C-alpha cells in the first residue's frame, strides 16, 4: 500500500486508495521468459542449418528428419572446397566485392554527407525523399538497361562492374546516414581545428572522420550486407561461373537442374553466414551508436 506522509488533504484520499504498483524495470521473470523464447526462435533455424550440414546426403533429405545427426560427417564441407564447384571463388568474389563496395561507398558517402551537413544548405523533407527514392527504385526493371550499360563499358564479369552497380544505389542512403551522424559532431571542435589552421579537407580527415567511426561502421555494414545479400545483380551482371558471387552461386549449384542437395547447401549456407555473423558481433556496439546518430538523426 502507498505511503502518504503528510496528513492527507481530501484530494489525496485517492492516493491512499491507489494500489502499490509493480517495480520498474519489468519483473525479471517476465524478461527471462521473453528472452528465452526468442532465443529459441532465433537459434533453432541456425542449429538446423548446422546439424543438417553435418549429415550425410541420405540422412539430410530423409523424410523422417533426425533432430540429432545419427552419423556426423564433414563430407559436405569437403565437397564444397574439394569438388569442382568453385565455391572458393564465390566466397572470394563475395568478400572482395562486398569489401570494396563498402569502402568505396563509405568514402564517397562521407564526403557527400559532410558537405550536406556543413555546406549550409540542409536536407529538407523532399531531398531526403529523393535520397530514399534511390532505395525504392525497382531494380528488377533497371537491371536490364544496367546490364547493357555495363556490357557496352565491357564491365560485365568484373569486380568493378559489380562494385559500381552495388555502390551507386547505396551511396545516397549512405550519405544520408553520414550526414545525420556528422550533424552530431559539435561545430566547436571543427572550428577549433580551423583556428589551428586546417583546411576543410584536413579537418574532415583528421577530425571529422576519426570522430565518426561508429557512423562509418554502420554505413559500411549496411552496404556490406546489401551487397552480400544481392542476388539480382550478380545474376545478371555476372555470367562467368568463376566470377560469380555466393547468392547466385549457391542457388545455381545446389538447386540446379540436376538435384537439390540440402546437406551441401546448408554447409555452404553456414560458411556464407559465418563471416557476417562474426563481423556483426564485433561491430554491433558501434552499430547501435551509429544508428542513434545516423539513421535516426538523419531524418
Amino acid at each position: 500500500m502507498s505511503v502518504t506522509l503528510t496528513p492527507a488533504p481530501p484530494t489525496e484520499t485517492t492516493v491512499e486508495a491507489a494500489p502499490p504498483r509493480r517495480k520498474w524495470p519489468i519483473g525479471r521473470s517476465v524478461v527471462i521468459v521473453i528472452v528465452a523464447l526468442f532465443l529459441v526462435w532465433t537459434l533453432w533455424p541456425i542449429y538446423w542449418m548446422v546439424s543438417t550440414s553435418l549429415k550425410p546426403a541420405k540422412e539430410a533429405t530423409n523424410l523422417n528428419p533426425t533432430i540429432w545427426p545419427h552419423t556426423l560427417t564433414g563430407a559436405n564441407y569437403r565437397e564444397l572446397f574439394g569438388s569442382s564447384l568453385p565455391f572458393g571463388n564465390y566466397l572470394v568474389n563475395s568478400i572482395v566485392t562486398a569489401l570494396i563496395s563498402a569502402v568505396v561507398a563509405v568514402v564517397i558517402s562521407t564526403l557527400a554527407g559532410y558537405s550536406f551537413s556543413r555546406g549550409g544548405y540542409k536536407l529538407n523533407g523532399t531531398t531526403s525523399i529523393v535520397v530514399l527514392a534511390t532505395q525504392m527504385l525497382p531494380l528488377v526493371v533497371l537491371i536490364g538497361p544496367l546490364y547493357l550499360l555495363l556490357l557496352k563499358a565491357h564491365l560485365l564479369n568484373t569486380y568493378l562492374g559489380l562494385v559500381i552497380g552495388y555502390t551507386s544505389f547505396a551511396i545516397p542512403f549512405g550519405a544520408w546516414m553520414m550526414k545525420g551522424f556528422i550533424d552530431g559532431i559539435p561545430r566547436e571542435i571543427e572550428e577549433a581545428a580551423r583556428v589551428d589552421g586546417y583546411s576543410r579537407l584536413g579537418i574532415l580527415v583528421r577530425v571529422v572522420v576519426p570522430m565518426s567511426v561508429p557512423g562509418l561502421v554502420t554505413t559500411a555494414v549496411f552496404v556490406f550486407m546489401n551487397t552480400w545479400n544481392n542476388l539480382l545483380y550478380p545474376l545478371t551482371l555476372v555470367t562467368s561461373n568463376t566470377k560469380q558471387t555466393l547468392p547466385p552461386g549457391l542457388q545455381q549449384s545446389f538447386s540446379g537442374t540436376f538435384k537439390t542437395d540440402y546437406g551441401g547447401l546448408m554447409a555452404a549456407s553456414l560458411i556464407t553466414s559465418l563471416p557476417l555473423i562474426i563481423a556483426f558481433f564485433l561491430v554491433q556496439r558501434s552499430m547501435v551508436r551509429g544508428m542513434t546518430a545516423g539513421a535516426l538523426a538523419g531524418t
Partner: protein
Amino acid sequence: MTLPALLILALVIGYPIVRAVIISFYHYPLLNPQHNFIGADNYRRLVDDPVFWQSLQNTAIYTGVSVVGAMLMGLVLALATENLQGPWRFFRGVLLTPWAVPVIVVAFLFQFMFEDTGGITNDLLLRLHIIDSAIPWLSSSQWSLAAVIIANIWSQAPFFLLIFTAALGGVPVEVTEAARIDRASTWSMIALIKLPYLRSAAVVGALLMIIQNFNNFPLIWAMTEGGPAYSSTTLVIYVYRLAFTSFNLGYASAIGVVWLVLLLMISAAFIRVLRGKTS
C-alpha cells in the same frame, strides 16, 4: 573529388531510370528487334490485369505483415533486453544474428524447414501434436505467403531490435526517474514515456524496411518463385518474370514506374509524419 563519383553515380542510376520510363511507353518484347510506341497502353493493360492486382495485394500483405511483425518483435526484445547487464548483454548479440544471415541463406533454410514431408517444422509440430496433419507450407496457395513472411520476419526483426535499442539509449535517465517518482507503472512507463522516444526510430525503420521488402527478390524467388499459382507472387517477382522469362520489357517497366510512384507516396507520407511531430 566527390564530383566524378557523383557523376558516375548519376549515370548509373539515371540512365536506367530514364530508359525504363521511356520503355514503359513501348511495346518492347526483347525477342524481336522492332519496338513500337504504344503510348499508355501498358498502363491501361495494367488496370485490368488480375495478376498485377494480386501481386500488388501480396506485396502489401507481405510488406505490411513483415514490417509490423518484425517491428513488434524488435520492440519487445529491445525493451526486454534494455537492462541486461554485463555477460547477459551477449544474448542481445545472439538475438541479432539472424540479421547477419544472408537473405538467400534464410530462403534456403526456411524452404528446407518448410518442406511438406521431411520438413522439420511439420515434423516437430506433428510430434508435439500441435497439428495432426502436415501443413503444406510452401505448396499451398493458402500458406505459401505466410511461410515466406515468417522467414522474412525471422531475418528482419533484429534490425528493429537494433534501432530500438539505439533509440532507447537516447532516453535520458532523468526522464525515466522522474516518471518513476511520478509513479508510472511498468506499462505507462513504456507507453507514455519510452515509446514517444522510439517514434522516429519506428518511422525511419519501418520506412526503410517497407522499401527493402518491396525490392526483396531473393527470399521469395528462392523459396517459392512466387508460387504456387500467384499465391506468393509480389510485384518484384512478377516484374522479374515479365522482364526475364516473358521478355515483355515494356509492360514490366510500366509496372516498375507505377511501383516507384507508389513508394514515393508512401515515404512522403511517412516523412510528413516524422517531421509533423518531431518539429
